[in-house]
């Protein structure tokens, strides 16, 4: 089924998102960014440009570059706000016969809907390129204060762009969805949206998955750009004080200053002090001048204090309109890039007497929420199955009491996993499958879920029989463990209801224990592995002597026999260094055997894949020696 997208059609930036695997995801633009400037232009050559590309040529083509068209959509030409905006906008705005606005671009008149549609078309094309399929259904957001005519115009823009607009939803509602607020009941939330150029505050009531906008307010000309300007002005002033040169008249220097100011502001959201370094910013008779300054977070806050304070006026008004006190708001959520600034968060914390909710990328929250709404309307979200995870690792016990994991914790279920194991002794007639749950590396420290015996294994040297162990957990958490002898086809199985065993507390305490004992466990595991490796090597050496004794010079044979004995005796004791040394020596002696037996380099001592490396076999999934059952 075709996907439905969610679109944040913003005044300065637009974003598109889609549900993917049950989660909303931002679709990157063809140019690589996530945020697309809401700018449309007709170039001098008649080419239509949208987004970043249109923005780059705005300076030299101001008459034919349309931005902030959202300020005009669905409004009458005679509208006071349109008359006000006309003074700020460099392109020509005309009056349509029905008193709607028209904008002029490339000697042609366009309705604001058509301009918005061009932006939407670009988003549509990007989404189609990303998803590899046609996209027609969309949810588009609009500010909570938009009236019917503005909403209808936005919807029309969607239709012109070729979308089937499923719904126009409020921006604060979309943000609330992105923050998962729909799961709350009977709450009042404030959505504080401080973007680059506009500020909106909305008070919402949530109940049983419905959102009701109680009141909304804002400032259409307040945002992060104003703070950037303050920082730029400050840098200019400081430089003038130090060097006596006025940078504000130097366009080239200003361009660098603007980038530096924005970068410094952003950095100060995570650090308390930042360097602004602009070497060769300008020059005078005495030579080149460098700009080096330190901007502290405190200074930035001082520079922007009144701007942030200004946002509280609309907040008070919105609360008053909703008939509420600041303390009556249950949640404050942050939207818009400027809310990353710690001072903004502090101010809100004080004003609402509670910690604002963070966690969703504030630039993307609106689009993400729109995508969720689109998913709900397409029946994708409601139908999504709640998938569980295994809280603890599941595995079996292998040689030396080691717990070998098959399904690691936090694996989404249902799932299944198979692995091939082998025997630990010659002619071993049966293996015991000891099913374990827990994070500790040693079997004894984990919880036993069950055990069973697979017998009837035909006599064979150790490491030869292949026993496939399969763990299968169904959606209800019921674990089926089966073991099959690949040689005879004989199978045994056990069914365990994993979830019945442990409470949440038990799971947590098991995880904690695992963390606490991590170091000593690792040491013990290492010991066992060393012992297993030693045992393996001694076994292989014995077998080699038995099978190929006639081809090995007597002298070497005796040397190896001596070293095997040394390994065996070291294994009796507890001195791990002795075990390791004896193994090492035997391994070196064995390397001579290959040459003697095969008379060529690269010859491997026989005995299967059990090289001196021991426990961890070289193979991938099919390699039969990843671990071995303990002897029964």
């Amino acid at each position, binding site marked *: *089924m075709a996907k439905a997208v969610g679109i944040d059609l913003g005044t300065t930036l637009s974003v598109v998102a889609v549900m*993917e*695997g*049950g989660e909303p995801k931002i679709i990157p633009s063809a*140019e*690589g960014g996530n945020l697309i400037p809401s700018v449309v232009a007709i*170039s*001098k050559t008649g080419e239509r*440009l949208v987004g970043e*590309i*249109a*923005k*780059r*040529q*705005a*300076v*030299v*083509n101001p008459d034919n570059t349309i931005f902030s068209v959202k300020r005009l959509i669905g409004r009458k030409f005679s509208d006071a706000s349109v008359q006000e905006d006309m003074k700020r906008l460099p392109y020509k705005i005309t009056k349509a016969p029905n008193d709607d606005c028209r904008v002029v671009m490339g000697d042609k008149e366009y309705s604001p809907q058509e301009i918005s549609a061009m932006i939407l078309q670009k988003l549509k094309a990007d989404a189609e390129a*990303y*998803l*590899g399929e046609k996209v027609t259904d969309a949810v588009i957001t609009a500010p909570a204060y938009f009236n019917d005519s503005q909403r209808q115009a936005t919807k029309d823009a969607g239709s012109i762009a070729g979308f089937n607009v499923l719904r126009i939803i409020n921006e604060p509602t979309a943000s609330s969805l992105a923050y998962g607020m729909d799961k709350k009941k009977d709450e009042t939330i404030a959505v504080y949206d401080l973007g680059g150029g506009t500020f909106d505050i909305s008070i919402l009531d949530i109940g049983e998955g419905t959102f009701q906008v109680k009141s909304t307010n804002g400032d259409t000309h307040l945002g992060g750009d104003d703070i950037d300007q303050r920082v730029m002005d400050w840098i200019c002033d400081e430089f003038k004080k130090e060097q006596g040169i006025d940078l504000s*008249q*130097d*366009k*080239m220097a200003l*361009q*660098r200053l603007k980038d530096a100011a924005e970068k410094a502001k952003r950095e100060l959201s995570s650090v308390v002090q930042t360097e602004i370094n602009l*070497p*060769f910013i300008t*020059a005078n008779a005495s*030579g*080149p001048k460098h700009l080096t300054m330190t901007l502290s977070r405190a200074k930035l806050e001082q520079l922007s204090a009144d701007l942030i304070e200004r946002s509280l006026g609309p907040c008070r008004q919105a609360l008053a309109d909703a008939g509420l006190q600041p303390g009556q708001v249950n949640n404050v959520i942050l939207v818009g890039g400027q809310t990353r600034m710690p001072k903004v968060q502090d101010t809100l914390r004080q004003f609402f007497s509670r910690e604002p909710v963070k966690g969703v990328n504030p630039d993307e929250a609106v689009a993400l929420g729109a995508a969720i709404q689109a998913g709900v309307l397409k029946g*994708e979200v409601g*139908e999504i*199955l709640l998938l569980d995870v295994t809280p603890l690792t599941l595995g079996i016990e292998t040689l030396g009491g080691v717990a070998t994991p098959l399904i690691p914790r936090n694996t989404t279920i249902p799932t299944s996993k198979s692995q091939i194991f082998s025997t630990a002794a010659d002619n071993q007639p049966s293996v015991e499958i000891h099913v374990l749950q827990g994070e500790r590396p040693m079997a004894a420290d984990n919880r036993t879920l069950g055990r069973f015996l697979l017998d009837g294994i035909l006599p064979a040297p150790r490491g030869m029989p292949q026993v496939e162990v399969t763990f299968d957990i169904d959606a209800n958490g019921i674990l089926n463990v089966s073991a099959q002898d690949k040689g005879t086809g004989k199978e045994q199985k056990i069914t365990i209801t994993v979830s019945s065993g442990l409470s949440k507390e038990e799971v947590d305490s098991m995880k904690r224990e695992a963390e606490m004992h991590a170091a000593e466990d690792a040491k013990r595991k290492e010991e066992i592995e060393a012992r297993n490796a030693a045992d393996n090597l001694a076994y292989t050496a014995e077998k080699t002597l038995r099978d190929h004794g006639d081809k090995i010079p007597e002298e070497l044979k005796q040397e190896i026999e001596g070293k095997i004995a040394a390994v065996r005796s070291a294994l009796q004791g507890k001195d791990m260094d002795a075990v390791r040394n004896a193994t090492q020596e035997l391994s070196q002696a064995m390397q001579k055997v290959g040459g003697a037996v095969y008379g060529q380099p690269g010859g491997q001592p026989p005995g299967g894949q059990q090289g001196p490396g021991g426990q961890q076999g070289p193979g991938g999934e099919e390699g039969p020696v990843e671990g071995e059952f303990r002897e029964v």
Partner: protein
Amino acid sequence: MSEEGLTNDETTEAGVEEVKAEDIEALQQALAEQEKEAEKYLANWQRAQADLANYRKHAEQEKQEIVDFGNSTLILSLLPIIDDFERAFDSLPSELCEMNWIEGIKIIYNSLKAVLERAGVTEIKAKGERFDPHLHEAVMGRAGEEGVILEEIQKGYRLKDRVIRPSLVVVGKGKEETEEENDGESSRD
């Protein structure tokens, strides 16, 4: 007896049929419900499978993207240093030009550029070219041949085939020497 038995039989048979008819109806209804359920499950399963397939595709794409452009953040943060080197050389006082020490600094600059070139970074041509917003960003206009780049304020770069930083340029606005001049000319000269 036989007649009686027959009638008896008939009534029971009719009764059985009646029960059966009701049962069948209930069963049919249950079957229809089950079929609907099954259809729904199949649809959801297919959707989940499709989701997974698409997710895989995207994960692959993103992996490739990371391989190709993963270091673009680092490269972008190195470019201003290249800019600064170039500014320094541009304003090099003539009496220092001959200094061997300066020569050494130039070698350092060239090595840094070579590292970036090996990573696939190339300069975008600007001055004298026609202005193209896909490659260049106009920061001002000035009297001069219309649509032609008169001056490059900051070099632009490509990483492989992607523009990672457009050139910042001054673009010609035609010959009119009128009031539009004021936004660049005075400060530049």
